[in-house]
């Protein structure tokens, strides 16, 4: 494995027609780092994550995954889009967890995890099923291996989604608002799985609105605003000290929404 960062985003722009969603993003993610990307809706945070997975083609700049340019080849100063198979090769060590889970509804939980092992990695059926079972155990879902996605709660579906990505033994896991589609009481079980992963040293990039998770788990917090990185640093720096007024306003709004009870003696700071 290369010595440099696992993900290196350099001067990335993304345009949808005339709309500029990302305006020159620079971001490095090192091995075992947990990077949380926060920001108001429409700030471009999900687009950035989708560009890193090449689910969106970025318009300008470069994204390197473990030293390899993603999605393009440089030829005599010009860049050329590479084939889908080549994209798949470069991002083979990138796992992705979706806001909407995106489990395949015609496969059981176990099949959702085992099928990619067989199809993409060519692992024999028995061995694929064994590994898939172990992954489901890791996310606490052994008992539901035979259930179809529609028979699982949102939190369970998302844990299967995480198991499916983990089974491919990725070097980095990307999470796109993994708890935003969940009922509040189901958020905790998913965050716990993610905490455990971070504790094991998994490299993670997480787009999230869960500030508590970012504060406790992140090594780096990145605040995106109007397609630019407006603040970044340790949770301590970003949440307590960074003076950026847009960041302060964003955090204040979040705080106002989430504090519904204050003691007589005084508000939490």
């Amino acid at each position, binding site marked *: 494995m290369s010595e440099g960062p696992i993900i290196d985003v350099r001067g990335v722009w993304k345009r949808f027609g005339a709309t500029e969603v990302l305006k020159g993003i620079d971001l490095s993610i090192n091995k075992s780092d947990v990077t949380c990307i926060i920001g108001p809706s429409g700030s471009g945070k999900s687009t950035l994550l989708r560009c890193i997975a090449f689910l969106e083609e970025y318009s300008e700049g470069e994204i390197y995954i473990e030293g390899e340019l993603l999605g393009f080849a440089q030829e005599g100063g010009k860049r050329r889009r590479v084939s889908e198979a080549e994209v798949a090769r470069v991002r083979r060590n990138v796992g992705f967890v979706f806001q909407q889970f995106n489990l395949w509804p015609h496969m059981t939980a176990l099949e959702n995890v085992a*099928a*990619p092992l067989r199809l993409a990695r060519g692992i024999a059926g028995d061995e694929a099923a064994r590994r898939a079972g172990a992954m489901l155990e890791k996310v606490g879902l052994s008992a539901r291996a035979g259930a179809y996605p529609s028979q699982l709660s949102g939190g369970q579906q998302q844990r299967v989604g995480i198991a499916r990505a983990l089974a491919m033994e990725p070097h980095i896991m990307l999470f796109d608002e993994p708890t935003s589609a969940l009922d509040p009481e189901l958020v905790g079980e998913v965050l716990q799985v993610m905490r455990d992963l971070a504790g094991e040293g998994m490299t993670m990039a997480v787009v999230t609105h869960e500030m508590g998770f970012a504060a406790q788990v992140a090594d780096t917090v990145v605040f995106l605003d109007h397609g630019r990185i407006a603040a970044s640093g340790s949770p301590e720096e970003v949440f307590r000290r960074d003076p950026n007024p847009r960041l302060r306003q964003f955090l204040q709004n979040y705080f106002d929404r989430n504090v519904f009870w204050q003691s007589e003696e005084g508000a939490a700071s």
Partner: protein
Amino acid sequence: MFNTTIIIKSLPLLLEASVWTVVYSLTSVAIGFCIGTLMCAARLSTSPAARRVSAFYVSFFRGVPLLVQLLISYYCLPLVGINVPSSVAAVGTLALCTGAYITEILRGGFLGIPAGLIEAARMVGLSRTQILTRIEVPLAVRFTLPSLVNETTMMVKASSLISVVGVLELTRLAQNIATSTFQPLEIYLTAGAIYFVINGVITLLGALLESRFQLEAAR
């Protein structure tokens, strides 16, 4: 007067011929399904050429009567040097015809698949072909099963048309018996009843499959 003896006497022959009806129609639906899947993928691809080929294919085979298609293939294939048994030419024509309808049926199913399911497949490294055969086709079939079953029953009935190009199947045999015995009413009623039973079985199998799929969707 209504002659039941002739029915009982000709029933074994009619049943034997109905086996061919089932073989020809189900074979064409199976081949037509593969054609339909490919044409549907072409129709929804990013290549303008592929989209045009698919659109032309569908409009031709939907726009020209099946009987005319059968006659064209029967008379024209030998002219261009393709000498195949008439049964093969007939099944091929049936398959191309039903393939055009299946293309349109599946298109609705494909379009109903959430984009995220395909993205998830790409992110775990499935190839384009694997995504088509393991994710898109199974889901499209689930979304469109009633229409596909309907199309299959239509093909069982449409297979009676291949009698005009000399292929022996249920209708053709019924014609033969009717003309040699001068008892058309009894024979055609029996043939009609056999078609009815075949399609009843197909509908039943479709319903069984549907209830199995519904287990997956059950809460």
